[in-house]
């Protein structure tokens, strides 16, 4: 393949590419969610230990995975933006933050509604839950810092530094269940109980994880398109877009 990927580092070439990709990833997310929910809520049998409450993990685990993964991706784009001063990287970091915050919020709320019937409490200041809450504050902090700085290039640098500093929280979340003896258990699904049941549970969780991936990609690409128009407005190529000219 002789595709020159650096061509897409320019907002003007990336904008239409992202526009082509968004509906495919959105449709993929919708189809995978439907399949994942069907397997998780209908096809999978009731867990003999947790009862039906365990069905929340099909939402909780993929959201929690995505919340951490998106943070690393956001920090990666921030590092590129800080190192190479590339505008599109900073825009990608900016576009990921709200979806990352959304995934963190879903992980926290679904975890609370799972914890209440299973552990007897919605919330505990357990190492994993507390570090996941800090992750939400990091996302909200990056978004708030962005909104507080008027010059977008200065905001890029400030948010980039904050995002990179916050990366230290990711291994803390991930290893919290090993480092501290906390309420949150290590393994999510006990794969050893009954092989048939375990595999259908795992299937639902993986399908939902892919759905979360597709959704996060679609939402981030849709958002980066808006950010590109906002930040590049006045450029000739923006003015020439059919959606800007109003001819579409």
């Amino acid at each position, binding site marked *: 393949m002789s595709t020159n990927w650096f061509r897409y580092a320019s907002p003007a070439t990336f904008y239409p590419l992202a526009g082509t990709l968004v509906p495919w990833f959105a449709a993929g997310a919708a189809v995978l969610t439907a399949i994942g929910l069907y397997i998780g809520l*209908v096809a999978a049998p009731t867990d003999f230990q947790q009862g039906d409450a365990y069905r*929340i993990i099909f939402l909780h685990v993929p959201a929690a995975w995505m919340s951490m993964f998106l943070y690393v991706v956001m920090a990666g784009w921030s590092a590129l933006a800080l190192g190479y001063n590339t505008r599109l990287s900073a825009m990608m970091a900016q576009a990921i933050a709200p979806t990352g915050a959304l995934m963190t919020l879903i992980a926290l709320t679904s975890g609370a509604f799972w914890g209440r019937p299973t552990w007897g409490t919605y919330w505990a200041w357990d190492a994993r839950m507390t570090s996941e809450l800090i992750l939400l504050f990091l996302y909200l902090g990056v978004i708030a810092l962005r909104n507080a700085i008027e010059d*977008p290039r200065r905001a890029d640098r400030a948010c980039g530094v904050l995002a990179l500093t916050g990366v230290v929280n990711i291994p803390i979340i991930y290893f919290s269940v090993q480092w501290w003896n906390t309420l949150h258990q290590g393994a999510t699904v006990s794969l050893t109980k009954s092989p048939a049941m375990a595999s259908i549970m795992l299937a639902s969780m993986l399908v939902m994880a892919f759905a979360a991936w597709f959704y996060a990609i679609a939402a981030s690409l849709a958002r980066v398109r*808006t950010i590109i128009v906002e930040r590049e407005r*006045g*450029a000739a190529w*923006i003015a020439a877009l059919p959606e800007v000219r109003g001819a579409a």
Partner: protein
Amino acid sequence: MSSFFAMNGYGFYIWSAYGIAVLAIVVEILLLRSHRKAVLAQARSTPSGPAPDSVAATE
């Protein structure tokens, strides 16, 4: 069907968890749409020239 929604007594927890997730996603999609509309309207009323972003970069 009602037994499906009851989830053997866990219905409240399961549907609350999934309901909040669906609500949050719907809100995100609506915000994405309204922000895009606002930004496109803003771009329409901006005279063509060097992008404000690139002006800031040369300062």
